[in-house]
């Protein structure tokens, strides 16, 4: 890292504190005593789990806080002037013009009723920097820099006519229009598929480097930020844990929390050696196809077997049909053809035709624990219901069983009368697991169970699932887009692409050369904890292309 690459200091944040307003007076402190400087051309990565205050800091550099919060201390000095002292009009002048923001969900940030040209050019036109015609030319230029297809006509499309990755890049173009001094990226690739993430990340980096813009890059994924940031700040619960050069953070993290974050990503896991038991498959899918009313063959001729005690991972990008596969197995979506057999017995395609016993044997855990459990029921009701429903037990019996299950998932027993609102995300996911266990199932379908959780919390959930498997011999059908997870917990894997199975078998076989071309693309897209990973991947792809 050569110091000369960066210009003068452009932003200095000094002992910033941001606090929420509570019902009676002040609420919790969201950001506590955070200081950093940013020079022209420098990219600072902000990393931490949810609730760490990353986004709050990002927005504060625009002189903005979410409603109910306010900046209560410190200074935010932009080019020698404290943003906190500026009038509302001056701040508005600053936003979009000098400091621009790129949000996580581009789909939610664009107006679906207007073309991309209109929206991308708006900032520059509103700030009086360009005429609409000039803005159009400039936008097309940026589209080209961002390697968007047909840059001249790309802007004539509406947001729904372009893919998620393209929309995210269009948002970067929008932010770049007024040639801002600072770009704030707030988890811009988190909602994208891994394969898309690589391309978007590469074009962001190109854009920043070519324009020499300073940037704050907010993410929860250390490997991603390692590709783009010069320095990294680690945050936890609103406090700065560590700030250092990217190399130092990755290779010699000083703080214990940073060390844990780095370790979880770097540890190389051996392939799972466990084998399913028995010869006869527990779950047997034979040439299953299924369609939605408007979408044909979302699942196309899929066959796979899960043995007792197996963990079968189903991987693929969004739209590959992996969640639909789960819906077909449990009967939420009736299959169009083929057969789904459980312990040799053919299951009726439709849910309501299945017997209570058939339903009990197969349970499901969802991606979003927040909506997967009823917020108005206590844990006793949530976990106890399958016990009374399937086994006809009542009163004290149910309570005793729920307490046993709480112990099994490592939650304190006094949680039994709590409502989900009093639990953290990881704890809620544990409750979902307990509810599934309460039915004493033989197969649990896990639909992206860790993707809504913070990294370290997700690791704990995976460990819990693994332990339960060892104790109870349950089989998992594990739907995920995270290939790192697959290696760690699945002994079998099925790779899906556009509704079809492209590869399936033992993980060690599928994930080792010779790969299927798509499996290789997926595997090579998983960010690694090296600063040169992105360059390598790009170079490799250029060679093969």
């Amino acid at each position, binding site marked *: 890292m050569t110091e000369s690459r960066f210009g003068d200091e452009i932003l200095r944040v000094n002992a910033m504190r941001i606090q929420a307003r509570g019902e009676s007076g002040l609420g919790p402190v969201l950001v506590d005593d955070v200081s950093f400087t940013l020079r022209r051309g420098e990219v600072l990565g902000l990393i931490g789990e949810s609730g760490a205050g990353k986004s709050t800091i990002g927005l504060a550099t625009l002189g903005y806080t979410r409603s*109910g919060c306010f900046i209560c201390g410190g200074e935010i000095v932009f080019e020698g002037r404290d943003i906190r002292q500026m009038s509302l009009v001056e701040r508005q002048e600053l936003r979009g013009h000098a400091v621009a923001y790129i949000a996580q969900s581009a789909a939610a940030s664009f107006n679906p009723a207007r073309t991309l040209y209109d929206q991308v050019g708006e900032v520059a036109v509103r700030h009086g920097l360009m005429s609409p015609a000039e803005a159009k030319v400039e936008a097309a230029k940026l589209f080209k820099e961002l390697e968007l297809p047909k840059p001249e006509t790309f802007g004539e499309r509406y947001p729904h006519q372009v893919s998620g990755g393209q929309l995210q890049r269009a948002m970067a173009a929008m932010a770049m229009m007024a040639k801002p001094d600072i770009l704030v990226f707030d988890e811009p690739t988190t909602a994208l598929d891994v394969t898309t993430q690589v391309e978007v990340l590469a074009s962001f980096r190109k854009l920043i480097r070519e324009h020499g813009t300073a940037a704050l890059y907010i993410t929860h994924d250390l490997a991603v930020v390692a590709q783009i940031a010069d320095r990294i700040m680690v945050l936890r619960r609103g406090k700065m844990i560590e700030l250092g050069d990217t190399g130092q953070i990755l290779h010699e993290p000083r703080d214990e929390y940073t060390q844990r974050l780095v370790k979880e990503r770097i540890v190389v896991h051996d392939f799972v050696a466990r084998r399913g038991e028995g010869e006869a498959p527990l779950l047997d899918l034979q040439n299953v196809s299924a369609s939605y009313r408007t979408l044909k063959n979302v699942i196309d001729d899929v066959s796979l077997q899960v043995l007792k005690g197996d963990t079968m991972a189903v991987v693929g990008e969004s739209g590959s049909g992996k969640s639909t596969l789960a819906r077909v197995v449990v009967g939420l979506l009736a299959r169009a053809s083929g057969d789904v057999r459980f312990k040799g017995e053919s299951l009726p395609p439709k849910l309501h035709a299945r017997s209570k016993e058939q339903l009990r044997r197969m349970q499901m855990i*969802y991606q979003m624990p927040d909506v*997967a459990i*009823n917020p108005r029921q206590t844990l006793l009701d949530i976990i106890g219901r399958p016990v009374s429903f399937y086994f006809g037990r009542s009163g004290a019996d149910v309570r005793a069983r729920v307490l046993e299950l709480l112990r099994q998932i490592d939650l304190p027993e006094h949680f039994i009368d709590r409502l989900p609102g009093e639990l953290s995300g990881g704890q809620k996911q544990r409750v979902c697991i307990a*509810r599934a266990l309460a039915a004493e199932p033989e197969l649990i379908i896990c639909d992206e169970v860790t993707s809504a959780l913070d990294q370290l919390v997700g690791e704990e959930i995976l460990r819990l699932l693994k332990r339960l498997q060892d104790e109870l011999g349950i089989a998992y059908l594990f739907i995920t887009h995270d290939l790192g997870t697959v290696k760690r917990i699945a002994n079998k894997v099925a790779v899906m692409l556009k509704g079809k199975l492209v590869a399936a078998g033992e993980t060690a076989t599928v994930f080792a050369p010779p790969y299927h071309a798509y499996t290789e693309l997926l595997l090579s897209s998983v960010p690694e904890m090296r600063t040169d990973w992105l360059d390598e991947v790009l170079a490799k792809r250029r060679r093969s292309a």
Partner: protein
Amino acid sequence: MRLFGHKMSILAQIGLLIVVVNIALAILAPVIAPYPEADLVGDAWADPSPQFWFGLDQIGRDIFSRMLYGARMSIGLSLVITCLSFTIGIIAGFSAAVLGRWVDVALSRIVDLLLSMPTLIFAFIILSVLGTELPVLIVTIAVLDSTKVFRLSRAVAMNIVVLEFVEAAKLRGEGLWWIIRREILPNAVPPLVAEFGLRFCFTFLFIAALSFLGLGIQPPFADWGSMVKDLAQVINYGSPAALYPAGAIALLTIGVNFIVDWLLAVYSKGHGEGA
């Protein structure tokens, strides 16, 4: 002061006081009222005096006494009608959301049909044909009102039905009644409670409008709505008599809504949904 284990805000306490006083007066009307509600006790339009606190009405009945009796009619009737309309509306609305497309289409079109005609005219037709006995009045207004409750509860339930805990209940094999009662209803309470407060007050006014057409509460029984209408005749001559029942309606409306606001705040806070 605490209610249901939650500390009441000042406004909620005021609201509760208003509602309790109103209900107490309504119940005790025969005991407190100085005169029977239908008796002519003096000259028409007599001014307020120590003998007749609020004065006398167009045919010489005591306005104060009639307001006490009117509270019985207005509050009691509105409460019964609103409860009935919510029962009908919620059951229909939730069924439409849960039972699938055809039930939804059928119920929604019936409701569209009812809503396509002005409620007042619709009620007018039905009451003219079936007569103006109280049970007919109650059922008619409740059914017409339930169309609005249907719309709300259907929309609320639609948002809840797609959540995964409902899917989890379906996967478990739970029946429809369980899903409606245990999974959907508890989560639909806040918007429905807010609507209840509003509908309860609207029902007053609706009864008043019907009374105006001679199809509401029949003389000699008093209700606040028709009292406003009757007494308003002389407002041009400087008599404030119409303001007493109107004020009573306004006061009760405000009181009910103070309590509703507080209930909503408690409900969202207790479950970590607040901002």
